[in-house]
Structure formats: C-alpha cells, structure tokens
C-alpha cells in the first residue's frame, strides 16, 4: 500500500506532538524515541524512519512551526494592506503564539542552544529556509511597491532578520511579565527602530563609509595579501561563509 504525502505529514505531526509532550514531561535527555513512538501509536521502525535521532526531531519541530505560521498568515485576507513592519511583526508574533502551548519545550531547546553544547547554533540555521524565504518575499514586495528603497546588503537582510528572531525567542524564554507583554513591547519597539532605519538613508550612508574605507585602505593590504595566493583564497572562502551563512 502506498502512503500518501498527506498521510505522511499527519503521522509526522502526530509524532512531533507526542515528542514535545514527552520532552516537557521528562526532559530532553530522559525522553526516548521508543516511548515517543509508543505515545504516538507508531512502531519503532516508523519513528526512526521519520526521525533518525532526537535532534532531527527538534529541527523538524521548528520547521513545522514555520510552516504553520506561514499558513496562518496566508489566512489573513487583507495581509497585503499591512506595512512591511506590520508583516514582519505578524510573522514573529504568530510564531511565538504557536510556541506558547509548547513553551516548556522551547525553554529546554533554548537552554540546549544557549547554555550547554547540546545543540549547535549552526544546526538551527538549517531549519530556517521557509522563514527566510517568507521574509525575502515580504521585502521584495515592499521594494517593488515602493514602500522602501532597495536597501544595501539587501540579500543579507532576511538572514539578519532570522538572527533577530532568535534573539526575540531568547528574550521571550526569559520573559516573566504577565502574558509576556514585555516581549510584545520589545518586538514593537525594536521593529519600530528597524523600520526607521529601513525608511532612512542610514544603511546606504553606512555602506558608503564602509566602501570608502575598504577602497582606500583595505584594498591595498588585501592586494599585498593576494600575492600569497593560497591564503587569499582561504580568506575569500571564509568571507563567503560569513556573508552567505
């Protein structure tokens, strides 16, 4: 019998939810894939088929939430009337809203990412494709509609926004205010600031300054460096990694 894509998706979500519940109950280290499978009503081979390790399951969870957030946003009829800032703010607030019922679980993940070496930050980046694609699209539309000017470093902004998003989640995890309203305000104010920067000329002025230094001072030393070809290539590669994630 052939398993359809949607049935597969359903099973995946079922496993994810029972995994989250179990991790909230027992902690990440003590929750076994075996027990998750049992709770989700699937066989052991099945769960390994979906998630070869517990870590993979975490990443799948984050990807799943991105999917749900984007789906929720797509339901907003007049989303096209939202400003860029409102769209970005809605994306973040929607993600947090989805995290809310799994907050204990998110706290555990955050702890593993920020405080122990349980999870590598770099690995988290592998989960952000849909998020970045969504932000990229919002930016494109905004530029095309003339809401903002094409900003310098345009192609890096979605990734930067993801970093910002991680920061928001880290703040939310530590937020003990009523209904997490401090986080809501933090998002509102920080996006207000980002919005102001995007609507101003600051970014391009900063890039002018950067280019000036680069051309007049850095280029010389780089050319010196370039005579030793191997190390120049190495630097270029490193630089590329930094810029392109």
């Amino acid at each position, binding site marked *: 019998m052939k398993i359809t894509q949607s049935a597969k998706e359903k099973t995946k979500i079922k496993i994810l939810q029972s995994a989250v519940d179990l991790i909230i109950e027992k902690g990440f280290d003590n929750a076994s894939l075996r027990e998750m499978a049992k709770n989700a009503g699937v066989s052991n081979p099945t769960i390994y088929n979906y998630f070869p390790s517990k870590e993979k399951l975490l990443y799948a969870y984050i990807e799943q939430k991105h999917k749900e957030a984007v789906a929720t946003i797509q339901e907003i009829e007049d989303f096209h*009337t939202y*400003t860029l800032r409102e769209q970005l*703010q809605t994306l973040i607030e929607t993600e947090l809203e989805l995290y809310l019922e799994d907050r204990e679980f998110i706290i555990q993940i955050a702890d593993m990412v920020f405080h122990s070496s349980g999870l590598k930050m770099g690995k988290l980046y592998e989960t952000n494709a849909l998020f970045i694609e969504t932000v990229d699209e919002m930016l494109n539309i905004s530029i095309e509609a003339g809401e903002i000017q094409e900003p310098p470093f345009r192609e890096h902004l979605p990734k930067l926004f993801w970093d910002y998003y991680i920061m928001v989640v880290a703040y939310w995890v530590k937020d003990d205010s009523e209904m997490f309203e401090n986080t*809501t*305000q933090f998002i*509102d*104010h920080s996006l*207000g600031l980002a919005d102001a920067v995007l609507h101003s000329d600051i970014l391009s002025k900063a890039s002018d300054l950067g280019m000036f230094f680069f051309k007049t001072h850095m280029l010389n030393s780089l050319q010196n460096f370039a005579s030793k070809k191997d190390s120049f290539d190495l630097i270029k590669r490193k630089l590329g990694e930094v810029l392109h994630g």
Partner: protein
Amino acid sequence: MDNALPTGKLSRGKVVGKALLKIGAKKTKRFVTGGDKEQNHAEIADIIFDSLGELKGMSVKIAQQVALGMPFLPPAYLERISKSFNAIPSINKALVRKIIKTELGVYPQDAFDTFEMKAFAAASLGQVHLATKDGKQLAVKVQYPGIKKSIESDMSLIHFGMKRFAKGQNVDHIIGEIEARLYEEVDYVLEAKNCDFFREKLQINNIVIPEVYHDLSSEKVLTTSYLEGLDFDSYLLSSPSQESRDAYAQLIFDSFFYALYNLKSIHADPNPGNFLFMQGGKLGLIDFGCVKKVDEDFLQMYNQLHLNLLEDNDHISIIQQYIKLGMIEEESEEKMLKFYTEVIKPLDTLYKEPLIGDNYNFKENPDFAKRGFKMIFKVQQKQFHSVHKLNEQFLFINRTLLGYYALFEKMGAKIETGYVKDLMRKQQIL
C-alpha cells in the same frame, strides 16, 4: 519611528529630566528679561507636554488627569493639555491581531464576522475598531500592552516633576488619587461593569449607552455595540441650531445630577470625547473608564449645603456645614471666616452661579470657564501655605461640573435649572 514608545524608567527619566532642564532655562530667561508671564507659562507648558508627548501613552492620560486634579496650574498649561486629548499612540495591525488573540484566545477574523484593522477612534489608553458579528455593528476597544505596568514608573516621575510646579503645595494625595484612577481606567473589566450599571440605571430619555458584549471582552479588550454619531467638535462644526445646542446641554446637565442623586455615581470625566451626538437629539455616553461613586452621608450634606448656598444663608451656618464636609478646619471663628471668604466662597459662588436663576445662558457669559479657572488658580495660590487637605469627593464633583460648564460655554447653550433643583429638594426630604 511613528510610534516608538520610549521604554524603561531610565529613558523616561531622561525625557522628563530634559524637560526640567529646559524649564530651568526658561525660568532663568524670564528672570533676566522680565518677560511676559503668561507667555512664559505657555512656553513652559509646551516644553512639558512636548516631553510628555515623547513619553506617550500613559503620559497623555496623566497630563489630562493632572489638569483635572491640579486646576491651580496656569491656564496656559490647561489649554495645552486639552490639545493632548486623543493623542494616544497608535497600535499597528500586527499588534492589534496579537492583542485580540492574547485576550480573546482567537484572532480577530475568528472572533468577529468582520474586523476593521484600521482604528476609527482613539480611546482611553487604546484605540477603537469597528467590527461586526451576527449582523450587529460593534466597537472594539483595544489597549496597548504594558500600560498598566508603566503607571507606577510614570507617576513617580510626574510626582517628581510636579512637586516643582506646585511650589510647596502638598501634591502627594493628588498624585495618589490620580494613580488610583489610572489603575481603574486601564481595567476594562471594571469599565464594562460601570457601563452595564449606567445602561441599566440611567433611564433618561434620549440618553443612549452601549451594550457590553462580555464574551468578547477582557481586561484589555472591550467590545460594545457601536453607536453612530458626531464627536463634540464635529457636532459644533455642523452648525447645529440653538435649539439643538440647548437640548444637548440640558441633557448632559440633567443626567449628571440624575446620576449623582439617584445613582450615587458620576461619569466623572468631562472630556468631550465621551459624548456622541446622535441622530434625533440622542446623546451617546461612551467611555466609562472614569466613574466616581459618592457616599450617601456625604451626598446629604453636600446637597444641604448647596441648597443653603442658593438661599444665601449666613456665613456662620454655611461654615458649620463646610466643617462637616471636611472642607474647612475647625479653629477660631475669625480664622475660619477668613479662610471661607478668601478660599471657599469664591469657589462656591462660581459653582452656584448657573443654578441661581431658573435658567442660565452660557452664551451671555462667554467667560465663565475662564473666570472659573482663574479663580481656582487664585484660590490655590492663597491656599499656598495651607496643609489642609480638602474633601476629595467634594472637589471631584465640582471639578467635573466645572468641566461640563466649560463645554456648555463652548456650545453657547442655555440651560434650565428647574429639574435639577427639584432633584436637590427631593434629596433633602429623603
């Protein structure tokens, strides 16, 4: 950018501090140049409220409350404050969605059949959105997050600043009162209760009070039926007939006293934004964030006093009643008489002025409010060294009334006093 609120005590402190610095400079300038006093007041008022404007949110409300609570501030301040009405920061679409979801558990599109993301009015510490559900038009008031928490830090700053303006007057109890009122005002559950109360009890022809939808309301979201009408300024701009102006002023006047005497509660915020001028001479009362309860014993004494004032009873018996009301401290007769004639009498003369005759035409007395505020200012200056704390309920009622009189004056309206005097006499019999 458009509505970034400065957060945290430090940044708020900086804004207030900056304003105080600027005021210091202005004062020095006046000292050096001699300068026109009234103009200086206007300049200083601009500085204060510019900085309060920078603080936004709470501060606008605080500015209003300070104006109500401290009428001794020069007229220039009060004028500047009235400009800040409705200047509440806007809540963007993302935030509106978020607040509705947090408060009602579902997103706006699921809570209502339709929901306009763009607000149609500013309200106390939030904004109002139009929505529909089951064919009914609704007004959904949404509050900015974190407002309640910022009351305390904002008020301690205002306290710090205001002490310098009050020139040695004890402002602590006024600040305390304002703070308590602000906490009440941010609590939409309380407002919903007040709204229900007035809707049920304020049975006066042509008064319309919206219906609260409790299942669509919470501490920070308040959903009521939507009333259609003109706000105060638009109403006046529509050049209404004299008849219409008189009728509306009468309605406001009568219902204030009806509520005071029959419900022992007043809608104590004379902000014109709380009224909606509706079709067919109906008046919508829409904001119940500021309701003041009055206790029975006090009311009896208050009423007796005002009846006697209208009959021009002798000073000694009037003073005895003021002592009971906690407006005059018992001491030597000479001292009490002096306090009465210098501080209290100018005020009660003012408050009773419209009540003396069978009617009072504000059109023929276009300087009533101005005289009133001047008088209060003068009285407060005389009261300068007095540490005597006046009865809050008393001040509150008369302050509100004076606020309404100021509206009647703007409307150029004439009021009849018969109904109100009847109420007063009936109260006496009770």
